[in-house]
């Protein structure tokens, strides 16, 4: 505000009279009350050139700082040449079996989801942060996990000849990825990188709801939307054009517990599996949550009681003042 005024205007305001300048800068004080120091200090500093320069510098500096930080001028709305679809369709909130604050994962679903990951997604996506041993006691027995690990060959070594060698996997090995490096992954997927799925649920807005919607959301592009060769249309993916084709189709896998493998069933199971992979501590965490809430609310109630107990006598005491009975007034 101050910086918009020219120096001349400012001077005029200052010289218009003491009452003017004092109401401008000390509006709270009534004009009729005059303090000895008011006039002198108002004219000596607030109306000075230094103050004007300093205020202008502060204003310019903060605007420059804002612009540098946020990339646009403050208080000016902008016009964007983008469309809401560039943000991706928002997924609906699904009633996940592990959604409530007291709910564990559905481990039968984790087991089926592992199967979907292994038979479908693992062709393109790695799951670097999960080792075979992590599946033990979650979705598979130790024997099953060991047998699955042994089906995979791992490079180990060096041996005492200094050579690397191949050996069957162990429980301590991590799940193998489909590609040796990122370049190979891109080369096989038209330049797009299939991201590692270990933490994908935490890494995307909408989490599990987004993933489920993405996997089941493939549709034909609406009129007017052009999708490049090798790309696919999915309204949930920001921008709409995704390199990953629709991968889940009814009956693609055969579940060993007899659950019908519909597209949505597989999407739900693999999403539950990946939710677990992103948060293996989930079940234990919620159990500790229950304990913490019980203990801390009990301690809180106790502390309130103790406070009232200690303060009761102090707050309820009555103080009597008995003036000295005297007829002669003394001081």
């Amino acid at each position, binding site marked *: 505000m101050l910086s918009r005024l020219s120096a001349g205007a400012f001077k005029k305001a200052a010289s218009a009279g003491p009452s003017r300048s004092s109401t401008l800068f000390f509006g709270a004080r009534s004009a009729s009350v005059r303090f000895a120091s008011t006039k002198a200090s108002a004219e000596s500093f607030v109306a000075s050139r230094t103050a004007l320069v300093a205020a202008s510098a502060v204003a310019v500096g903060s605007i420059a700082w804002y612009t540098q930080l946020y990339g646009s001028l403050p208080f000016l709305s902008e016009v964007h040449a983008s469309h809401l679809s560039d943000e991706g369709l928002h997924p609906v909130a699904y009633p996940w079996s592990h959604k409530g604050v*007291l709910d*564990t*994962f559905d481990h039968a679903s984790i*087991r089926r989801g592992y199967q979907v990951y292994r038979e479908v997604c693992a062709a393109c996506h790695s799951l670097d942060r999960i080792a075979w041993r992590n599946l033990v006691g979650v979705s598979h027995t130790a024997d099953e996990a060991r047998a699955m690990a042994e089906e995979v060959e791992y490079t180990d070594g060096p041996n005492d000849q200094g050579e690397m060698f191949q050996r069957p996997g162990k429980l301590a090995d991590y799940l193998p990825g489909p590609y040796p490096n990122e370049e190979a992954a891109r080369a096989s997927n038209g330049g797009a990188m299939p991201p590692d799925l270990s933490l994908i649920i935490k890494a995307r807005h909408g989490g599990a709801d987004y993933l489920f919607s993405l996997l089941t959301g493939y549709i034909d592009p609406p009129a007017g939307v052009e999708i490049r060769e090798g790309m696919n249309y999915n309204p949930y993916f920001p921008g709409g054009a995704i390199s990953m084709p629709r991968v889940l189709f009814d009956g693609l896998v055969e579940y060993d517990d007899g659950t019908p493998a519909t597209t949505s069933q597989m999407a739900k199971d693999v999403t539950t599996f990946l939710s677990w992979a992103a948060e293996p501590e989930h*079940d234990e965490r919620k*159990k500790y949550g229950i304990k913490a809430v019980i203990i801390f609310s009990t301690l809180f109630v106790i502390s309130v009681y103790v406070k009232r107990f200690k303060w009761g006598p102090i707050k309820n005491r009555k103080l009597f003042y008995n003036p000295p009975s005297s007829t002669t007034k003394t001081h």
Partner: protein
Amino acid sequence: MSLANTAYNIFFKRNSVFVGTVFAGAFAFGVAFDIGVTKFYDSWNRGKQWKDIRHKYVQEE
């Protein structure tokens, strides 16, 4: 009054006994609390956890 007296004589009179009571009480409470919460948690989530479906997959030798 005699109950309070008995309690005083048993638990509070000697500091060593008092401290021991606190430690033993904390231990017992910890175990009991854990059992109680786990029981509730398992019944709330009946059929969902690994221990509920494990029997379908283990082969006992």
